[in-house]
């Protein structure tokens, strides 16, 4: 506390409003960030339990847990769908954007709060409402068994006649509106509310990541919203956008979905890129190598990400030129991605590295992301993808590059910032154990899926021939280890709040140069009310 530049903030302590006003009507960026993190953690438990149930079913050939009838198989499909939706829309996005974004973007750019605090509150409650709608969807009319891609005709009224898919669509609409409002808030905040001297080219890379993510959200989500509305009217009001019997085309849905869907994977991973950049720099005690290259690499990934969508639909029968284009365009993304990987390595190179838990997670992130990137290049080849499409090879690929990588980025950010958020440090030994369990778990879980996928095992199917049994058994053991690692995280969380050692403004020392480390820990309710002056300072990272 002694080295805090804002020591006078202690006096705001007694301004905390009552419980209801503070947590239900909150307009404070830190409280809203905390709310988002809690929702993400609750959703992670639900989405996680769904995936462990799937893995338990897949541990052996034959049907053990689900019943061997259409209802049972529909239930399996609902689990897969629910897991995908929850992890993407209600775990990673809320934690990264709503949670860490709300907490740290204002702190890092020296702003007292977000530009539109009330709208921030609306964003949060829309997200909560979206989540509840999705849970309702799972319990009515057999649930939505469409996969997170919601392809018609499976998602049409012919094959999902009940209300489940309509509730799912509504859920995504509401969650999408939440994200759009949030994105507008971030862009305005970052454009207009930087402290004097905090020029665009001095912003920490996490802020850059959030800015680009926000633009991707604004460009991609309305297209999903449009497509979903067409699906909704096809199902209920007699339009036929995707119904070939009335002159529509289901492939149009795939174009619309993936025009959103591919940028969506960058929406998920760019914030993690930002977090990893902060952490690698902090624990190497060096500014990030090639700061501007890092920032513009993210921008390039964002731009090119909008013209590669059809690599998800090579099997619909494109002609050879179209496939050649989408293969080439997809591979182009490897260039800015490579810039990022090599810059992180170059930052570590010759740095004074401290392997604290956040840094262990950052290195693990880079490892997983590279593995997933390599299989991504494989899948980008349209001719190869015709064979890999809808196999477990794809499941392994996207969990490495997006799903698990994002979770590692979230853990990295949590361990990095928990001192700032709670004023207490995580328990060291338990946290290291948590890291190793989770890291080993996810690799044992997903690495074998490359092989079962290579051998042709299809995804989204609850049963398989005996030939695939060994890989699936190993994979399910990995899921068990991952589950234990996840459980241990909640123990770490509890021990941190219950018995963590108290930390000062900057527990990480010299390497941590960004503005959030200049305010007290836990960060007081109001921060940066006197704007810090960054004039003449070096780029934050």
């Amino acid at each position, binding site marked *: 506390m002694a080295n805090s530049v804002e020591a006078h903030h202690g006096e705001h302590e007694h301004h905390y409003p009552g419980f209801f006003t503070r947590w239900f009507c909150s307009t404070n960026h830190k409280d809203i960030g905390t709310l988002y993190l809690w929702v993400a953690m609750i959703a992670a438990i639900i989405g996680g339990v769904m995936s462990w149930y799937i893995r338990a079913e897949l541990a052996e050939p034959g049907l053990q847990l689900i019943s*061997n009838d259409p209802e049972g198989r529909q239930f399996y499909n609902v689990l897969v769908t629910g897991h995908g939706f929850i992890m993407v829309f209600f775990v990673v996005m809320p934690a990264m954007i709503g949670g860490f974004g709300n907490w740290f973007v204002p702190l890092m750019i020296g702003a007292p709060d977000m530009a*539109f605090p009330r709208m921030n509150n609306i964003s949060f409650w829309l997200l909560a409402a979206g989540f509840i709608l999705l849970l309702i969807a799972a319990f009515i009319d057999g649930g939505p068994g469409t996969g997170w891609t919601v392809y018609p005709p499976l998602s049409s009224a012919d094959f999902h006649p009940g209300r489940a898919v309509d509730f799912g669509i509504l859920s995504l609409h509401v969650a999408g509106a939440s994200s759009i409002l949030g994105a507008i808030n971030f*862009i305005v905040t970052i454009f*207009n509310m930087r402290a004097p001297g905090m020029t665009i080219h001095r912003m920490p890379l996490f802020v850059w990541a959030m800015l680009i993510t926000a633009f991707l959200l604004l460009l991609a989500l*309305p297209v999903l919203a449009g497509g979903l509305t067409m699906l909704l009217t096809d199902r209920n009001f007699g339009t036929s956008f995707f119904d070939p*019997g*009335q002159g529509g*085309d289901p492939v149009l849905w795939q174009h619309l979905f993936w025009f959103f869907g591919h940028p969506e994977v960058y929406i998920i991973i760019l914030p993690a890129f930002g977090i990893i950049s902060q952490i690698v720099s902090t624990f190497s005690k060096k500014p990030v190598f090639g700061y501007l290259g890092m920032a513009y690499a993210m921008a390039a990934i964002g731009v090119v990400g909008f013209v590669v969508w059809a690599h998800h639909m090579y099997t619909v029968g494109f002609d050879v030129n179209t496939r050649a284009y989408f293969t080439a365009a997809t591979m182009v993304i490897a260039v800015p991605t490579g810039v990022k990987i090599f810059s992180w390595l170059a930052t570590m190179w010759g740095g004074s590295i401290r392997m604290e838990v956040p840094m262990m997670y950052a290195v693990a992130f880079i490892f997983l992301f590279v593995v997933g990137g390599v299989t991504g290049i494989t899948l980008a080849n349209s001719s190869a993808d015709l064979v890999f499409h809808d196999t477990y090879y794809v499941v392994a690929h996207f969990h490495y590059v997006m799903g698990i990588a994002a979770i590692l980025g979230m853990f990295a950010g949590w361990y990095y910032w928990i001192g700032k958020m709670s004023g207490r440090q995580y328990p060291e030994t338990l946290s290291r154990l948590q890291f190793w369990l989770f890291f080993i778990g996810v690799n044992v879980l997903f690495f074998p899926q490359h092989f079962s996928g290579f051998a042709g095992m299809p995804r989204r199917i609850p049963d398989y021939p005996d030939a695939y049994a060994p890989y699936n058994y190993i994979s399910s053991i990995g899921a068990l280890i991952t589950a234990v690692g996840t459980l241990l995280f909640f123990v770490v969380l509890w021990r941190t709040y219950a018995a963590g050692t108290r930390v000062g403004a900057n527990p990480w020392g010299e390497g941590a140069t960004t503005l959030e480390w200049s305010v007290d820990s836990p960060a007081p309710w109001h921060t940066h009310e006197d704007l810090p002056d960054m004039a003449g300072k070096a780029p934050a990272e």
Partner: protein
Amino acid sequence: MASLQTRNRRIAISLVTLVVGMLGLAYASVPLYELFCRVTGYGGTPKIKIAGAPVKKSNGTIEVRFDANTNKALQWHFKPVQVKQTVKLGEPSLAFYRVKNTSANLLTGTAIFNVTPFKAASYFSKIDCFCFVEQTLKPGQEIDMPVEFFVDPEIFSDPKTQEISAITLSYTFYPVERDEDNVDRTLSRKSGSNDEIDS
């Protein structure tokens, strides 16, 4: 300089415009996509040349195969009369499909169509086809329906389509839903679950 609040509003409004614009683009993609498919033969959309007259004659021949499908909700029996034909390039040919209403109701259907390989579509033209209009069949009624088409000889000049030796013309009949038609949709809904896995 304008107050922070005004400047914030200004940016927010332009961002909202961006969102609305993207939403508009999503809807604009529907007619654009249809136009694109029709012009390029994308996704196997054949050309329609009601005016007829083939471009030029040639001695080359190509095999045309005929395929028929019926949506489960329509109780019709639908089959090609001939499985395949060898046709002269550039010359109009006639083929027939036979359809029978196996239900006890008056039913109306409409057929959608495409050709495979998709890349052959821009060289496959229909002059006349039963699929251009809706078909209504009385209970138990059976009819033969014609399709008149030709294959453009240019198909053998294009390096991308040179190697094609057979084109498949495929139709799927769907019910045209009117309230009087009491089409049994629940039938198809029930069979919707994935019955491919049986263990």
